[in-house]
């Protein structure tokens, strides 16, 4: 395992080379080479308009790149539709909390469990056949501290809890890698701590790539950070190194921040 390509494919779960997205002459993402190490928490940061979200949408296949290649576990997924990528175990979250608002928390998680275990096209069967997923769904809700919300419609849950529900739903797919788009966006301090702890805890089992604005979260959670500016990689490293990097300070942190 420790030799050549096999070693590399194993060490890096997700790799891009020359990843480019051009919108009518404007390069939102240009020639990005990203390597995400298996089992790490990798953060993608950068000032507004740096192309973080575009980059993120390229990786999850919600946007088609105009150039470059994306490889997941050594497999070229550049041309693969998003639902297929999810089936390979690369699952994304969304900037605005992505739950199914009028389904209960339990049903939210169950929809994800149901996908893996088939029978999703059975319109002639009663949905009580889905009850077999309930124990696992309760387990997942319990994991993220949502047991008491099991029968609450997602729309009635507080914002921070919705994010936790979203993570539980993602975990239900038993992914290998999770892509989190600003998991802390719009959250209060208390919730941030809870979700950060949750991410830290699940990172023991999964590889995580996240786009995040909140620098203290990034500092605490990430093993490695990639800084994007104007669609290109400016620097990469851990938080301590990057916070000393003059280019990063200038482009992102600003003079007074360091």
């Amino acid at each position: 395992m420790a030799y050549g390509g096999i070693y590399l494919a194993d060490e890096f779960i997700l790799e891009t080379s020359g990843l480019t997205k051009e919108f009518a002459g404007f390069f939102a993402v240009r020639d990005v080479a990203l390597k995400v190490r298996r089992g790490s928490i990798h953060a993608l940061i950068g000032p507004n308009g740096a192309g973080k979200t575009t980059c993120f949408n390229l990786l999850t296949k919600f946007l088609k790149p105009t150039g470059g290649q994306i490889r997941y576990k050594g497999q070229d997924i550049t041309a693969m539709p998003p639902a297929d990528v999810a089936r390979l175990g690369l699952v994304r979250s969304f900037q605005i909390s992505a739950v199914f608002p009028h389904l209960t928390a339990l049903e939210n998680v169950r929809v994800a469990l149901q996908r893996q275990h088939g029978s999703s096209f059975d319109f002639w069967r009663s949905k009580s056949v889905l009850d077999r997923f309930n124990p696992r769904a309760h387990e997942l809700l319990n994991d993220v501290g949502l047991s008491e919300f099991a029968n609450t419609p997602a729309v009635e849950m507080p914002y921070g809890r919705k994010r936790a529900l979203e993570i539980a739903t993602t975990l239900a797919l038993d992914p290998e890698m999770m892509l989190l788009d600003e998991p802390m966006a719009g959250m209060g301090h208390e919730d941030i701590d809870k979700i950060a702890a949750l991410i830290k805890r699940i990172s023991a089992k999964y590889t995580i790539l996240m786009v995040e604005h909140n620098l203290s979260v990034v500092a605490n959670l990430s093993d490695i950070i990639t800084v994007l500016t104007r669609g290109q990689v400016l620097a990469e490293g851990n938080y301590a190194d990057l916070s000393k990097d003059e280019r990063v300070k200038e482009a992102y942190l600003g003079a007074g921040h360091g």
Partner: protein
Amino acid sequence: MSALTDDTLPVTPRAMRDEMIVFAVMAALLAVVPFTGIYPFFVMQALCFALLACAFNLLIGYGGLLSFGHAMFLGTAGYVSAHALKVWGLPPELGIVVGTAAAALLGLVTGYISIKRQGIYFSMITLALSQLLYFLYLQAPFTHGEDGIQGIPQGHLLGIFDLSKPIVLYYVVLVGFLAGFLLIYRTINSPFGEVLKSIRENEPRAISLGYKTDQYKLLAFILSGTLAGFAGSLKVFVAQNASLTDVHWSMSGEIVLMTLVGGLGTIFGPVVGAFVIIAMQQYLAGFGQWVTVIQGVIFVSCVLLFRRGLVGELAHLLRRSL
């Protein structure tokens, strides 16, 4: 889309029990109609439209897809059934099967084309396709153009039930309606229905969970079209004709109207809506052209005052799912 379904209540076991009770009451009420002196032809017609509206509601209320061409299923199944009965001389049960199958096939083709687009573009494609069919039927010799197919023999269902007797026909139509209604109810509360609802609620998220949402939307479209077609085939026996009215775009509009008046995304709303609209056409017929104006006023006030529709408002008041 979500604005339309903002007030949908989650379905709990209690809700399902409530719904089955309401269903039993509805079935019982409809079963005694012939003994009440209510004109059975009116109720039969309303039942066909109720099934049609329920089929349409399956698509928009639970799949978030607004079809503005559902008359094409009603009309196509009607023409095919009528032709099969009159020209080919098929027995009623086969006439219904052939008509419904034609609608299913049409659903497959039109669904495949239209679900490639979302929101208003989806609606416009369904409208365009139904207009295309309208002009086809206007020109095709077998539909007899403006005259329509007249004097369709009703025959004996399964060789036993004489459909020319109003009371027999009434119960056959009622059984057909109840069966169609139950199939829609089951679909909504099936594993497939759960996925469909999740797509309505948040399609990108459903995709990110690995669902190929187009396949689910297509199946919903075909089911909805097939059941709308079934309603069209039943209607042939009631009206004993098949005409251009049933494929005209204004019919598609009427289906939307019935569903909105009754309550979008509610189980029983489309049934109530269909009865209200058909009753208005029946009992306000004396006002002639003014019926359209009155309908318009009711439609506007419904949208302004009872945004959830009659049943939707009631369900909201009772905090129940109906």
